[in-house]
């Protein structure tokens, strides 16, 4: 799969970099700030970040094909997203939802190649 811009051994450094920026927010408050309370506005904002990042990733991947907005029936990702969303909302089960999405895409691929 092409696209990996980061070369072989640099990948390892990037991973450690990601590890460091993950560990520090886990560790520093636990060790140093046991008595501090974050203002509710700040904690409220932190809570929203995963939703924003996930949406920023998912929405374009469903609606954009090769740099162009694709709202046609040929966009199997977009069509498969509907049952996937529904399954996620209904069951809140990660594996079931992923399985639904994959099944939908396979089905669409066979029905409308």
């Amino acid at each position, binding site marked *: 799969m092409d696209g990996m811009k980061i070369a072989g051994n640099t990948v390892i450094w990037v991973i450690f970099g990601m590890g460091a920026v993950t560990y520090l927010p886990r560790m520093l408050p636990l060790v140093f700030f046991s008595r501090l309370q974050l203002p509710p506005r700040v904690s*409220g904002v932190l809570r929203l970040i995963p939703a924003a990042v996930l949406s920023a990733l998912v929405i374009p991947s469903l609606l954009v094909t090769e740099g162009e907005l694709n709202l046609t029936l040929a966009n199997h990702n977009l069509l498969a997203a509907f049952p996937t969303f529904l399954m996620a909302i209904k069951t809140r089960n990660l594996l079931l939802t992923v399985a639904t999405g994959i099944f939908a895409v396979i089905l669409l691929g066979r029905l409308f190649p």
Partner: protein
Amino acid sequence: MTEANRTDRHDSSEAGRSGRPSSNQKGLGAGLSKSLPIVLAYVPVGWVFGVLARRAGLTVLETQLMSSVIYAGAAQFIAISMFSTGAGAGAMILTTFLVNLRHVLFSMSLAPRLKSLTPRELAVLAYGVTDETFVLNSVELDRGARDREFILGVNLGAFLAWNAGTLAGALAGGFIIDTGALGLEFALPALFISLLVFQLKDQASLVTAAAAGVFALGLAVWAPGAWNIIVAAVAAVFIGGCLESWRG
């Protein structure tokens, strides 16, 4: 460490090994067994990560390193997605940082209840803070006294499960040849959809997600690039945050 804690630890280790019900709240074994629900979730999802990471072009070593060095599900999946699209190191590290920043909340919430632990012990336990272990440990700590071995047991069980799943997936993933017909390209988007839905708990998160989606869409069409995610996310969080302030 107080005298009481030392006594507890000694008693509980023995009791934990013999499995007497009155002491199922203390000791490494107790923590490990309490982590079972998390283990059951982490093994398959870790497996999915292992498979997808290999498909994105990572080696088994790199895949395993991600699960052991980063150890954060959502961020790891996002990272391999960014690897695939050729994102640069800076964008990836910043995105990882932003996505995992919420762990600050978890640690701050746990800290008051772990005051008797030394900084070194806290540093070790901090490594295992995830959404799931945070919830479990919080509930357990609220129910009564738990010693440091218990918390460690919970964290260790979860960590091993995630890494075992990753290893299995990474090794199995190497054997997949033609995946086009298997629809696995949609596995990651489907997973993100799942994780996204789990995050949508209230109006603020819905608005934030909607805004992020719209911004990211606009940027993707007019100005493609890996920093789009961060820009869209920051802008959306700003809006969501304002909404929360006005209502609250």
